[in-house]
C-alpha cells in the first residue's frame, strides 16, 4: 500500500468515526426526548459510504434517503446544523421543517433526503439531463437501500439513464434489511447489481466492510459515469441496529446480529491502520476523541438553539415573493369577523 493510500485510509477512518459518533449522539438526543418527532433511522454499519462520498467531486449532486445522516457528514455537512434540524430548531438546515429524514444542503449538491422509499432515485436522471444539456462535468448519485431496490421507479430511472447515457450513479446500500424484511425474503435474485447490468449499466457489488474497496470501486464507477456510462454499485453491509430507534429487531436472531456487526468498516479500518503502522493507538484515540467532542458540541448547540417562530410554517410552500397560503384564522375571520 502506498503512503498516499494510507493517508487516504486515515481520512476515511476520521470520516467514518465522525459518522459513528454523530449517529450515537443522535440516538441519545432521541432517548432524552430532544429530537423532533418519532422518526430516527441510524446508519451505523453503513459508514463505508464514506468511500463513495470521497470519490465525488465538487459540483456533483446526490439524493439520499431516510437513513442518510452519514452521507451528509461525509459530503461535508455541518453537524451542528444537522443536529439542529433533527431537533426541529430554527437554525437547522431546513429551518426545522424537514427533520432527520429531510436534510438538504444545496451548497453541497445535496438535492434532499427522501422519506418515500425510492422517491429520490429518479431525480438524478433529471440532474443528469441538466448536466448533459448544459455541458457541465458533474455526476449525480442516488443513494438508497436494498428496500428501495425493489421499487419499480428504480427500473424506470436506470433504463432512462442507460438509454440517454447520463452521468448518473445508483448507489445501493444493501444493509440486508428493508425495515424487518431480510433481502432474501424481498428479492428473488439478491445479486442486485445483475439487474443493473441487464438494464445496460456498469454494475458491481463491493464489500462494505472495506472502505478502501468501496472507494476504489466508486472511483471507477463515477469516472465511467462522468464519461457517459451510468453505473450501479451495491455496498454490502449490515444494519447494526433496528430499522428505527424503537425497533428491537424481533425478526432476527441475536446470533445473526453478533455476526453482522463484525462487518464493521470502522473497526476494520482501525485494524489496517495499526497493522500498516500508519497510525498508533494514541493517534486513533485522538481522532475518536475529536469526533466525540465535535458531536457533543453539535448536540449542545441543537439543544440550546431556538425553535422556529410558529408563523414561519407558511413560508416556503411557494417561492419567496409569492403570496403564502391563507392562514386558517384569517379565513375564519373573513367569515365570522367584524370586517366581513
Amino acid at each position, binding site marked *: 500500500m502506498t503512503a498516499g493510500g494510507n493517508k487516504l485510509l486515515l481520512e476515511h477512518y476520521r470520516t467514518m468515526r465522525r459518522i459513528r459518533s454523530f449517529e450515537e449522539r443522535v440516538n441519545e438526543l432521541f432517548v432524552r426526548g430532544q429530537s423532533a418527532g418519532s422518526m430516527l433511522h441510524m446508519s451505523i454499519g453503513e459508514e463505508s459510504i464514506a468511500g463513495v462520498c470521497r470519490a465525488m467531486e465538487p459540483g456533483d449532486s446526490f439524493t439520499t434517503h431516510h437513513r442518510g445522516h452519514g452521507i451528509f457528514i461525509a459530503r461535508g455537512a455541518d453537524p451542528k446544523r444537522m443536529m439542529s434540524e433533527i431537533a426541529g430548531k430554527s437554525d437547522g438546515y431546513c429551518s426545522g421543517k424537514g427533520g432527520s429524514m429531510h436534510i*438538504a444542503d444545496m451548497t453541497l449538491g445535496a438535492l434532499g433526503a427522501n422519506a418515500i422509499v425510492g422517491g*429520490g432515485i429518479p*431525480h438524478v436522471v433529471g440532474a443528469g439531463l441538466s448536466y448533459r444539456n448544459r455541458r457541465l462535468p458533474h455526476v449525480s448519485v442516488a443513494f438508497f437501500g436494498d428496500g428501495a431496490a425493489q421499487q*419499480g421507479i428504480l427500473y424506470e430511472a436506470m433504463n432512462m439513464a442507460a438509454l440517454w447515457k447520463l452521468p448518473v450513479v445508483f448507489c445501493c446500500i444493501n444493509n440486508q434489511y428493508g425495515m424487518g424484511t431480510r433481502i432474501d425474503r424481498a428479492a428473488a435474485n439478491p445479486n442486485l447489481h445483475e439487474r443493473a447490468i441487464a438494464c445496460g449499466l456498469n454494475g458491481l457489488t463491493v464489500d462494505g466492510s472495506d472502505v478502501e474497496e468501496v472507494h476504489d470501486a466508486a472511483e471507477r464507477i463515477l469516472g465511467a459515469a462522468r464519461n457517459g456510462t451510468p453505473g450501479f454499485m451495491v455496498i454490502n453491509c449490515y444494519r447494526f441496529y433496528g430499522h428505527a430507534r424503537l425497533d428491537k429487531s424481533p425478526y432476527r436472531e441475536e446470533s445473526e446480529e453478533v455476526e453482522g456487526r463484525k462487518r464493521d468498516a470502522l473497526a476494520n479500518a482501525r485494524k489496517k491502520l495499526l497493522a500498516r503502522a500508519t497510525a498508533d493507538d494514541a493517534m486513533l484515540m485522538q481522532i475518536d476523541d475529536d469526533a466525540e467532542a465535535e458531536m457533543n458540541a453539535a448536540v449542545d448547540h441543537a439543544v440550546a438553539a431556538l425553535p422556529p417562530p410558529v408563523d414561519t410554517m407558511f413560508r416556503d410552500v*411557494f*417561492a419567496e415573493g409569492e403570496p403564502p397560503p391563507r392562514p386558517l384564522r384569517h379565513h375564519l375571520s373573513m*367569515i365570522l369577523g367584524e370586517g366581513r
Partner: protein
Amino acid sequence: MAAVETTYREALRQALIEAMTEDETVFVMGEEVGRYGGAYGVTKGLLEMFGENRVIDTPIAEAGIVGAAVGAAMTGSRPVAELMYIDFAGLTMDQVANQAAKSRYMFGGQIGVPMVLRMQGGTGRSAAAQHSQSLESWFTHVPGLRVVMPATVNDAYHLLRMALKCPDPVIFIEHKGLYVRKGTLDTERPDGAWGQSVIRREGADLTIVTYSRMMFEALAAAETLSAQGVSAEVIDIRCLNPLDDETLIRSVTKTGRAMVVTESVMTSGFAAELSARISERCFEHLEEPVLRVAGEDIPIPVSPALERGAVPSPQLIAETALWLVRRIAPSWAA
C-alpha cells in the same frame, strides 16, 4: 402583434416555441413528444427546431418522466413534462405530490422545483373510463402545487407562458375537447393576471362558477337563459390553486345565487371546494343554497350516448339555473 384567430393546440405550441427560444434551460419530455409530435399534436415540429436534447422522447414510464423532471428542475433546468392523459397520473403521484410539491417546503426553501407538468383530461372523444377523467382535485388537494386549467385559446398561450416563468411546480391541465377549438390569441393581452379568476359574461340573477371546457357549456347555457329573461354571470376560475375567490365572492354578493359547474364527478370534487367557499363567505347574501352541477358519480362510459349523459350539458345547466332563479322545475324534477 395584432390578435389572430388560431386553435387552442396552436396557442399552446406557440407558447412552448417562444419559451424554448427565449430560455435555453426549457426543454420538453414525455411519451411521443418528439418524432410523433405529441399525441394531440401540441409539440409538433419542436424536435426539428430544438433537437433531441431539448425535445426528449421517453420510454412509457410516467413516474420516471415526472421524477426526472423534478431532478432537472432542482438542478437549473426548466422542464415541461407531458403526461399523455391525466388518467396516467396515478402512476406518478409520489413524484408529483411528495417530491415536486414538497421539496421546497421540506428543505426549508433551499430547493425549488420550477417545472410544468402538462396533461389533458376530460370527455368528448369516447375514450372510456381510463382516458376521459377530470382529476384536478387530486392535485388541488396538495399544498405546494399550482393548478391551472385554461379554457380559451388566449389562456392556453398566456397561462403556459406564465407557468414557464413560475418558480413553483405547475400542474397544467388541458382539455382534449378543446385542442381544435378556435379563438382569438393576442400575445400582448392576457385574459387576466396569473392566479386571477375572470368574468367571461356579466349578469345579475345568478353566478355560474366554472373552468376548462365547461366554461363554454356555461356560456351556451347563459345564452339560452338570456332568451328567457335570466341574466347569468359566468366566472372562469382558470387557476384553481391558489384560488382567487374574491372575484367570485364579489359576484355572488351581487347576484345572491350561485351554481358551480364542473365536468369532474361530484363527490369530493373541486366543485365542493368552490361551493364551500361561496357558502362561507356569502352566507348572508345567498337567496338559495349553492348548487353543484357536476359529472355523475360513475366511471366515464365509452358509448357517446352514455358519455354525453355523464357530464353536464348546456341544457342541464340552463334548466338548473331556471329552477334556481325562477323556481321553474325541469321535466325531470322529482
